[in-house]
């Protein structure tokens, strides 16, 4: 099950990477340059870090049959808060850095609680509940930066998104850490089970004594934290905070990543690893578009086509119709069942 879910996304990812190889012979080469490992693959991981984070958070939200449109704004707010906290500072005392991190996490938790309460306690539909933050959040971010692009002159701050550890970009480690945390919460505790059951059938879950309210609250908080850290990385990477543009349209890319990864927007089963692949697909696609010199006008068309291809490849019906006999029996029945069991 899990495997078949991951198979096609991985294939697409490989195809995209191979296309790059075609344009740039040493695309896969990873060399040591002024002390760091560098190479396109590493760049993709590094650039993709924020999206990866946001998508991981989004996965859990979507598993509960919800969606978090607020992430983009949270990214902006986090960046603003972070930059503002260290704006005064310079020299290399680490205190401001950690206060900044603390503040950022604090505010992301706040946003998470905000969304979570609206959805779980007041019962607002997720898409609208989070839409509120999506709109207002940017305002708040700009309020903090006073509409300016706040530049940071404090070097330690740039470490989060620009620094290196063990010759690798630091952000990669952050992502890894969050991924581990998420997997632990969902696979080593009952969190995952509860999320999936609430996402599939809230009423039955309630009658089974599961406190769906707190589950919902928790996933939105987690999503908030992920977005917050993502924002920190973004802003630290360019050593500035841009209240209006930071994280613009991230919500859509994140949802896209989650769905490409095989998680259904109808809630229920979720696949963190799939999400990771999904996010990588999107990021490498972007990088590819830039590096093989596609005209900006047709960026979107290309993106659309790739998205469709991924989805079609994942659809058993499509594979059946196209690849004909190709493991026919299998998919045929699967599709038939899905035909009626989706609801």
């Amino acid at each position: 099950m899990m495997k078949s879910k991951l198979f096609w996304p991985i294939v697409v990812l490989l195809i995209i990477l191979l296309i790059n190889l075609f344009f740039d012979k040493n695309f896969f080469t990873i060399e040591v340059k002024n002390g760091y490992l560098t190479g396109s693959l590493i760049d993709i991981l590094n650039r993709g870090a924020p999206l990866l984070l946001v998508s991981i958070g989004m996965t859990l939200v979507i598993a509960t049959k919800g969606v978090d449109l607020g992430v983009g704004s949270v990214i902006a707010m986090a960046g603003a808060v972070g930059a503002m906290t260290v704006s005064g500072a310079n020299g290399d005392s680490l205190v401001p850095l950690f206060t900044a991190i603390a503040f950022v996490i604090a505010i992301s938790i706040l946003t998470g609680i905000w969304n979570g309460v609206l959805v779980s306690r007041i019962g607002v539909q997720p898409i609208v509940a989070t839409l509120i933050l999506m709109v207002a959040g940017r305002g708040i971010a700009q309020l903090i930066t006073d509409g300016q692009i706040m530049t940071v002159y404090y070097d330690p701050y740039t470490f989060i998104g620009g620094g290196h550890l063990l010759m690798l970009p630091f952000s990669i480690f952050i992502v890894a850490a969050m991924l581990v945390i998420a997997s632990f919460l969902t696979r080593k505790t009952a969190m995952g089970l509860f999320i999936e059951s609430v996402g599939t059938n809230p009423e039955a879950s309630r009658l089974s004594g599961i406190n769906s309210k707190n589950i919902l609250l928790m996933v939105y908080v987690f999503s908030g934290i992920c977005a917050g850290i993502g924002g920190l990385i973004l802003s630290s990477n360019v050593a500035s905070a841009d209240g209006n543009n930071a994280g613009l349209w991230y919500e859509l890319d994140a949802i896209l990543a989650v769905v490409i990864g095989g998680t259904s927007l109808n809630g229920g089963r979720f696949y963190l690893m799939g999400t990771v692949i999904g996010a990588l697909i999107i990021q490498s696609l972007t990088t590819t578009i830039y590096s093989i010199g596609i005209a900006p006008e047709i960026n979107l068309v290309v993106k659309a086509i790739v998205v469709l291809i991924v989805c079609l490849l994942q659809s058993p019906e499509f594979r059946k119709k196209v690849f004909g006999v190709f493991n026919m029996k299998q998919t045929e029945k699967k599709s038939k069942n899905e035909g009626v069991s989706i609801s």
Partner: protein
Amino acid sequence: SSSGTGGQTDSSSSNGAGKSSDKLVIGFSQVGAESEWRTANTKSMQNAIKDAGHELKFSDAQQKQENQIKALRSFIAQKVDAIVFSPVVETGFETVLQEAKDAKIPVFLADRAVDIKDDSLWVTFLGSDFIEEGRKAANWLVEETADTEGDVNIVELQGTVGSAPAIDRKEGFEEVIKDHPNMKIIKSQTGDFTRAKGKEVMEAFLKSDGENIDVLYSHNDDMAIGAIQAIEEYGLKPGKDIKIIGVDAVRGAFEAMAAGKMNVTVECNPLFGPQMVDLIEAHLAGEEIPKRVAVEESMYTMDQAEELLPTREY
């Protein structure tokens, strides 16, 4: 406020003339707050109007033309004495401007023109000439590289696809360099006017073309600043190995130039608030004013950066 009763008159000129001295209600519809430049422009306009002792009705269109039209309509409904606005797009304001004209409210265009045949719909257009900015940038480059023989490989960071400054700055730039066969734009991609994108795209450029990039032409300074970081991380010297041209002349650019990381920035001056207020008062006082007033702008290079830096307001 005078807005409640003020507008309900037959001839605007007489009433306008009467009003020119005393407190005016001015509606200002801004595109949005998409960049530092824009914010500076908004501030300048707001302060200028307040300092002149007039009442400001401000509305932010959030980059949406439909919002802007709503805003203009409501200004008309509130019977303001004058409308200032920076169009989101050049096109598609006939109808509402006609309504304004019928309501005898003078309209002043700021920063961006509208493309309407009937120019009686607005009093004047005060703003920068994006195409000219593109030309300036190119001309600087031509002089700078006059004595270098061989190709000059240029990469371009465009603004948001379809936005007026992006289109015009590209046009102006290309218009000049097309007479110089040795100048080639080898890569051109949008960076959406933002630092993050600028950096990301520049990284990709460096990956694919690396050393043989000679010049970066960026449609605004923010993208250039992002790109500079990318170049440094790639291990080249911005300003030396790769010459960097920006537009806007925001403070960030001056810092970069002062640090020798950027070569030149073409000014695109957002601080024309006072100039605009003068025009409004003049018009309402019945004076004749030209249809097109240019904002005085120049161009700053590395060597000027040092002493000018403290004086920059944005």
